[in-house]
């Protein structure tokens, strides 16, 4: 380290762990993240992993942000390089002045290093081999050992970290002992050999509050439990698999009948996504709340059934954890590229309700609300999350639930209603909101039975090929979709600190990067109002927002500006007014990218408040 000053920063840096997947590094890295959070400092970690089970490179990238930003920052200030396979690129990625932590058991030639970084070699393997006999344990404690070293190097509280180890292995004293010992070995070695702390350090703060740390897929699984789902049909696919796994484990905990030990839920692993959605539709038709979780390829397979559910008006909930498409695409990278495939899924004139959670908290709340909406509207409802929030743990508001809330089962005619002689036309618009009444099989011996089909029928569910019946039905479905606008979660408006004619729209996991980008722009005197859209169909607020601004940036994580297309299509917006800000290389979008693009575009529009030379955000690489 001679040509550059070492980076100095407290509570604001990016640390990246380069590991080999299947080596048990994930839990050690997570422990490290939690140790920092215990110090009241905000972290946001992200797994970057291959579509492979063992032996391939993985990275765990963690942003520490004293200001509380949760989006990916980009760049790397410290690299913990534990994977020889990726050594060269990992070392190259480090910012000038950065820190390289590595296992120095084996000597490496000078040429393998850079002279503008600080190199911290710790003989991890040697220390493990000396102190641990079991081969598998050696590998696992090696990970904890580097965590111990980092605790010393970054000035993290050792006692807090030890407590975390005990919590993680509660009841397994032997494991606690082995891990705490490794933690201390790493810690003490770093203390002895390096001047701790480094220029990078963590300082106790109070930025975490009562927030919780969980991944979006688990939150969806929990949302399905709270939302009253009893039937899940699914087929495994990255990055959605853990939604149903989480549903299963929360169900075992919360939905096992205490007396009989029996399950108040049913999970069927289907033979493919066609069968998965078929089961959901069968269960929904029969009055159970049912869902599936999938990703792009599964959505493609479900198309015909989704059209049936739309046209036959059957509630269904689909969690789509989006990944990079098209085709198999980038199965372990994030994108928001299934919007059009879901919004207009299936042939013919279809429209579906989509919800866009921003973080695990909303995965839980919208994930539960989806069931009320599906039954109220008698239609499929898609919860559109993505790999970035689905498979990464994220700090978010603690979950809450109003115990006075009751499930909205929608317009269901009961035995008593039928007995009382209520007229029943399955596809009759009685209330003018486009939503008809339905009955559940088995309700009444002689009243309320009807025949469900995907073909045209009259309001009384009788087969019909009459154009008038078809048109009546399509107009009613249109009305129903208009009703949906008033029921779906409203968008979230964030006003700039000064009045502005510039707006930006984002959705889903882009939220945190958007908020940070706005702050960057404000620092630079650029004011932008933002609207985070939370659902399709778009409520009136969305169109009002567009009308109230001269230029509206639409920030998305896909290549073809899918939300923008939907806004233009549904709101009859002049396309020029909606400016694309698109990030789609599979990494989560960053604030620097958004702010840079917006600043650049504003220069191009010659928006008068801007001095181009005074704009340091221009030409910032994604």
């Amino acid at each position, binding site marked *: 380290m001679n040509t550059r000053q070492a980076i100095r920063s407290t509570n604001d840096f990016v640390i990246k762990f380069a590991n080999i997947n299947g080596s048990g590094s994930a839990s050690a890295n997570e422990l490290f993240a939690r140790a920092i959070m215990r110090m009241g400092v905000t972290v946001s970690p992200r797994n970057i992993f291959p579509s492979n089970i063992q032996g391939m490179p993985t990275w765990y990238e963690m942003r520490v942000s004293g200001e509380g930003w949760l989006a990916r920052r980009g760049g790397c200030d410290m690299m913990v390089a534990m994977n020889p396979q990726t050594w060269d690129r990992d070392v190259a990625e480090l910012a000038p002045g950065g820190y390289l932590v590595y296992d120095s058991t084996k000597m490496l030639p000078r040429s393998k290093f850079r002279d503008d970084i600080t190199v911290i070699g710790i003989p991890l393997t040697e220390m493990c081999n000396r102190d641990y006999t079991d081969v598998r344990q050696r590998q696992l404690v090696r990970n904890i050992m580097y965590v111990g070293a980092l605790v010393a190097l970054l000035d993290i509280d050792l006692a807090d970290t030890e407590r975390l180890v005990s919590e993680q292995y509660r009841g397994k004293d032997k494991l606690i002992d082995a891990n705490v010992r490794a933690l201390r070995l790493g810690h003490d070695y770093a203390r002895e050999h390096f001047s701790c702390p480094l220029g990078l350090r963590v300082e106790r703060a109070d930025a975490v509050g009562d927030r919780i740390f969980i991944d979006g897929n688990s939150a969806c699984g929990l949302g399905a439990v709270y939302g009253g789902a009893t039937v899940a049909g699914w087929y495994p696919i990255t990055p959605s698999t853990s939604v149903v796994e989480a549903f299963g484990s929360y169900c075992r905990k919360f939905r096992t009948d205490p007396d009989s030990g029996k399950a*108040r839920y049913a999970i069927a692993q289907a033979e493919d996504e066609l069968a998965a959605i078929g089961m959901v539709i069968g269960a929904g038709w029969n009055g159970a709340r049912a869902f599936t979780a999938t990703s792009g390829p599964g959505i493609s397979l479900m198309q015909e059934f989704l059209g049936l559910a739309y046209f036959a008006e059957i509630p269904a909930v689909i969690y789509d954890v989006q990944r990079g498409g098209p085709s198999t695409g980038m199965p372990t990278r994030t994108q928001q590229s299934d919007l059009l495939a879901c919004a207009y899924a299936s042939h013919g004139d279809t429209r579906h309700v989509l919800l866009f959670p921003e973080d695990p908290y909303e995965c839980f709340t919208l994930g539960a609300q989806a069931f009320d909406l599906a039954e109220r509207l008698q239609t499929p409802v898609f919860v559109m999350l993505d790999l970035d929030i689905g498979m990464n743990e994220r700090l978010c508001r603690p*979950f809450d*639930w109003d115990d006075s809330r009751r499930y909205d089962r929608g317009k269901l005619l009961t035995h008593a209603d039928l007995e009382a002689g209520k007229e029943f036309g399955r596809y009759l618009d009685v209330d003018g909101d486009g939503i008809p009444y339905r009955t559940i099989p088995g309700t009444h011996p002689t009243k309320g039975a009807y025949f469900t089909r995907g073909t045209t029928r009259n309001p009384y569910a009788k087969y019909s090929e009459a154009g008038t019946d078809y048109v009546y039905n399509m107009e009613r479905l249109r009305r129903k979709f208009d009703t949906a606008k008033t029921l779906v979660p409203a968008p979230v408006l964030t006003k700039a600190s000064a009045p502005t004619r510039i707006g930006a729209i984002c959705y889903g996991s882009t939220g945190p990067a958007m908020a940070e980008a706005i702050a960057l722009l404000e620092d630079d005197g650029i004011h932008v109002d933002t609207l985070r859209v939370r659902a399709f169909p778009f409520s009136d607020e969305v169109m009002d927002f567009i009308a109230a601004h001269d230029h509206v940036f639409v920030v998305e994580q896909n290549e073809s500006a899918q939300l923008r297309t939907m806004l233009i299509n549904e709101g009859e917006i002049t396309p020029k007014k909606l400016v694309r800000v698109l990030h789609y290389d599979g990494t989560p979008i960053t604030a620097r990218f958004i702010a840079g693009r917006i600043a650049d575009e504003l220069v191009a529009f010659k928006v008068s408040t801007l001095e181009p030379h005074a704009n340091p955000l221009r030409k910032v690489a994604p």
Partner: protein
Amino acid sequence: MTYLAKPKLLRADTPRNALGYTRRDYEGAISTLCAGCGHDSISASIVQACFDLDIEPHRVAKLSGIGCSSKTPDYFLGNSHGFNSVHGRMPSVLTGAALANRTLLYLGVSGDGDSASIGIGQFAHAMRRGVNMTYIVENNGVYGLTKGQFSATADKGSKNKKGVVNADSPIDLAALALQLGATYVARSFSGDKEQLVPLIKGALHHRGPAFIDVISPCVTFNNHTGSTKSYDYVREHNAAVNRLDVILPKAQIEASYPPGSLRRVVQHDGSILHLRKVGVDYDPSDRIGAMNHLQERHALGEIVTGLLYVDSSGDDMHAHLNTVEKPLNQLGDAYLCPGSSALAALNASLR
């Protein structure tokens, strides 16, 4: 199944079952199938079986795919909820419905195209999973609704109406069902109601996947010479292994049979299957024997019918999943939602 709208008034001597229902209470909309279509006779057999068994129509859920055969649920059990789903996918919809409410009777109706061509995957997996259902394939060897193309059950060498010979090997759905774990497997002929009605009854009283392959001639596209699914061909090559009578626990009638000619199978609900021997010695509790018998006779050009296999000790998907007795679709909020206190504890564990 009903061809002509009938007068509403009933004669005083119209037969009624134990529930007080007449046969007409089990009928549905007027059939739109071709006159003489085998499928209509199957609908009539379903009506007869449900009437005889005193089944409350609203306790039945009838589901189908797409095809002439899959249209038929509209033509029987008008007081039952029905679901005409998408082509080849009835089994998954039925599975989901059965998960939602374990107390209804599930009747799946499909065609040979629906089940053996586009839907063979779903057919196979529903059998494997042990869904509690009666699954009837109305098998005519062609796609009736799309005008007579060969289906996957068409025999190799059989001719279509224009004389084109089918070169592909046939799929025997009954043989597949045996191999895949169905616990009640039968084959019958739409033209033989005496055989078919009891087979449907036995299936409706069976717990687990009950499959009936019913050869059901398509009079419009596959009833000519050279077809192996025509009325004439099936009559000439029908090789029944037994004749079934279903005796309900409440009916105490004991018919007398010559010694050695009868097998008795008691099902989980106490219903008794009386299997009368017809010619050959056939053991319907031997799955492998049944598979062999089907293959041997098929090689001789025979169509084996009757109750091919039954295992009355089997359980179903709900048993495998250990679900509660109460239907999942009837569990109230209190049984489903863990509430805010559970969340508080959960939040604490996530910090």
